[in-house]
C-alpha cells in the first residue's frame, strides 16, 4: 500500500513555510519519518506543531516548501495523500449525534469499503478499542478517553500506512493515555509510520524513535531521544544537607572538587552539581563532603530527561541559577 521504496522515508517535508497574516507560523521546517517508526514533534504551544501536521495531512497549504506523503506531493496530489493517511486532531473529529458504530460505518462507506465491508471493519475496530459495549450509544455520551479511542479507530478504517496524531493524549487520564500508547506501539509494529505531536515529554521518550524539536516555526534540534539527552546535559548530582548552616561549607567543598560553582537551592537545602564523567568524581565529592564535616541527608543522581532537553532548548532566556536564588522550578 505504501508508495515509496522501503528505504525512502514515508513522510518527507522540506523547508515548509506558512504565515497566518503577520504571524510566521512555520519558518522552514524539514523532517523525515520512516515507515514503522514514530517521529515525535515537540515544541511549546504556538511553535508550529499543529500547522505542520495540518499541512502534511492536506488540511492547509504551505506558502512554500515541499512535502511528500507515501511518495505523493501534499499540495499537488492531495487526493492520493488522503487515501494513505489517518489523522487524529486535537479535538475528536466525530459526529456526536451518531453512535460510535454509525460514525465508523459512515466514514467506512465514504472510504468505499462498501456497506458490508464498512460494517465488518467497524465491528473489528470497536472490539479492538474496547468500545463494543458503547458501540450503539451516541458519541456525545462518551467520555474523553472513549471519544479519543473512537477517533483513532476512525482514522484506521482504511489501514493507512501513515498516521498523524496531534496531541492524541492531551486531556486523557493516565490509564487511558497508557492504553493509547499500547495501541500506537502495536500500529508501529505493524509497519505504520506515526507522526506524533505532544506536550508530554514522557510520551515522546516512550514512543518516539526520532524527535524533532521546533520553536518559533523552526527546527531547533533533532535526533533520537537518547542522543538529544546525551547532547544537552550530563547527569546531575543532587545533595541535600541535613542542617541548613552546613550549606556554605558544602558549597565550598564542592567548588574545590569540581572546579565550578554548584547550583544551590537555599529553601530546599540542596546543592546540585553536574557529573562530567564517572564514579571517580562521585567518590571525590563524597570524600570532600566528609572532610568538610557536612552531614548529608540525601544524595541522588538525576539522569537527564527529555524534559531537561526541552527546557534547555526552548527557554534560553531563563534566569541563571545563582547561589542566592530562592528555589524556583528547574
Amino acid at each position, binding site marked *: 500500500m505504501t508508495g515509496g521504496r522501503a528505504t525512502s522515508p514515508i513522510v518527507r517535508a522540506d523547508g515548509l513555510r506558512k504565515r497566518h497574516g503577520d504571524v510566521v507560523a512555520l519558518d522552514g521546517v524539514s523532517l523525515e519519518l520512516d515507515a514503522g517508526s514514530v517521529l515525535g514533534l515537540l515544541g511549546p504551544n504556538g511553535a508550529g506543531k499543529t500547522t505542520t501536521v495540518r499541512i502534511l*495531512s*492536506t*488540511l*492547509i497549504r504551505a506558502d512554500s516548501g515541499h512535502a511528500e506523503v507515501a511518495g505523493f506531493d501534499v499540495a499537488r496530489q492531495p*487526493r492520493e495523500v*488522503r*487515501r494513505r*493517511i*489517518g*489523522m487524529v*486532531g486535537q*479535538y*475528536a*473529529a*466525530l*459526529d*456526536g*449525534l*451518531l453512535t460510535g458504530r*454509525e460514525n465508523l460505518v*459512515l*466514514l467506512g*462507506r*465514504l*472510504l468505499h469499503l462498501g456497506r458490508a465491508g464498512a460494517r465488518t471493519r467497524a465491528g473489528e475496530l470497536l472490539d479492538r478499542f474496547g468500545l463494543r459495549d458503547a458501540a450503539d450509544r*451516541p458519541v456525545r455520551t462518551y467520555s474523553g478517553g472513549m471519544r479519543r479511542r473512537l477517533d483513532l479507530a*476512525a*482514522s484506521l478504517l482504511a489501514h493507512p500506512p501513515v498516521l498523524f496524531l496531534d496531541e492524541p493524549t492531551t486531556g486523557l487520564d493516565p490509564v487511558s493515555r497508557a492504553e493509547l500508547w499500547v495501541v500506537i506501539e502495536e500500529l508501529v509494529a505493524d509497519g505504520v509510520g506515526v507522526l506524533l505531536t505532544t506536550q508530554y515529554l514522557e510520551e515522546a521518550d516512550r514512543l518516539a524513535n526520532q524527535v524533532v524539536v521546533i520553536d518559533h516555526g523552526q527546527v531547533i534540534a533533532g535526533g533520537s531521544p537518547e542522543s538529544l539527552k546525551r547532547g544537552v546535559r550530563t547527569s546531575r548530582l543532587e545533595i541535600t544537607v541535613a542542617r541548613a548552616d552546613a550549606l556554605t561549607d558544602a558549597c565550598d567543598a564542592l567548588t574545590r572538587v569540581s572546579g565550578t560553582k554548584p547550583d544551590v537551592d537555599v529553601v530546599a537545602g540542596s546543592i546540585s552539581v553536574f557529573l562530567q564523567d564517572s564514579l571517580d568524581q562521585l567518590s571525590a565529592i563524597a570524600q570532600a563532603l566528609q572532610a568538610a564535616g557536612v552531614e548529608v541527608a540525601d544524595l541522588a543522581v538525576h539522569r537527564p530527561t527529555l524534559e531537561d532537553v526541552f527546557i534547555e532548548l526552548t527557554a534560553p532566556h531563563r534566569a541563571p541559577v545563582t547561589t542566592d536564588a530562592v528555589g524556583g522550578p528547574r
Partner: protein
Amino acid sequence: MNGSDVMVLTGRHLLHFRRSPGRFIGIAMNPLVMLLAMGYLFRRSIVVPGSGDYVDFLMAGVAAQVGLASVGPAAIGVSADLREGIVDRFRTMPVAQASVLLGRTVADLLLSAVALLVVTTVGLMLGWRPHTGAWSVIVGFGLLLGFLYAMEWFGVVLGLLLREAETIDSIGALVLVLLSFLSSAFLSIQGLPEWIRPIAAWNPVSVVVSACRLLWGSPAAPTPGLPGQYPLAAAWATVVLLLVVFVPLASHLYRRAAER
C-alpha cells in the same frame, strides 16, 4: 464527486433528524401557526383581494414560508459541523468537498418537503383546493421545492457567515418575519405603504407565491412591475438566480471556513 458519497452523507443527516426531531418542529411550526391563525381564526376578518376563499389565497404563502423557516435550521446544522471538527475528518479523507454540502442540503430539502406535505394536508383540511389541472398543481409544488432548495443553500451561507448558534437563531427569525411580511404571502401588496410595494413585489417570496397562485387557480393579488406581468418566468428565474448565487458562495465560504 461521487453520487454514492452524497447518498451516504445525506443518510447521515437523515439519522440526525431521527435523533433530534426538534428541527422538524422548528421548520413546520411557523407555517402551521400562520395557517391556523390566519386561515382559521382570522379568516372572517380578512378581505381577499379579488374574490374567493382566504384559505385558497393563503395556502401558497404558507407553503413558501416553509422555505423561510428552513433557513435557520440549515444554518445551525452547518455551523455545528464546523464546530464538531468532523469537517476536518472529511477533508483528510478522499471525499469531494462538494459532496459534503450536497448531502447536507439534499437531506434538509427532504425534511422541508415533509414539512410542506404536513402544511398542505392541514390546508386541505381547512378547505384549500387547487382549481386547475393536476399538471399545473404539480408544477406549482415543483416550483416550491426549487424555492425550498434555494433556501437550504441560503441557510448554509448564513451559517458559514454567522457561526454562532445564538446569532443564527435571531437572524433566522428576522429573515422569516421580514421576508414573509414584506411579501404577498398573507396579504395583498397593494395594502402596504407605497414605497415598500416595489420591494415586496421583487421579494422572491412574493414572486414564487404569485406563480403558485396562478398555477393552482387561487385568488391572486395584483403585483406591480415585471413580476406581475410574467409571473411564471419571474418565479423560475428567481429560483435559478438564488441557486446560482448561493451555491458557489456557500462552497467558497465552506472552503474558507474549513481551512482557517
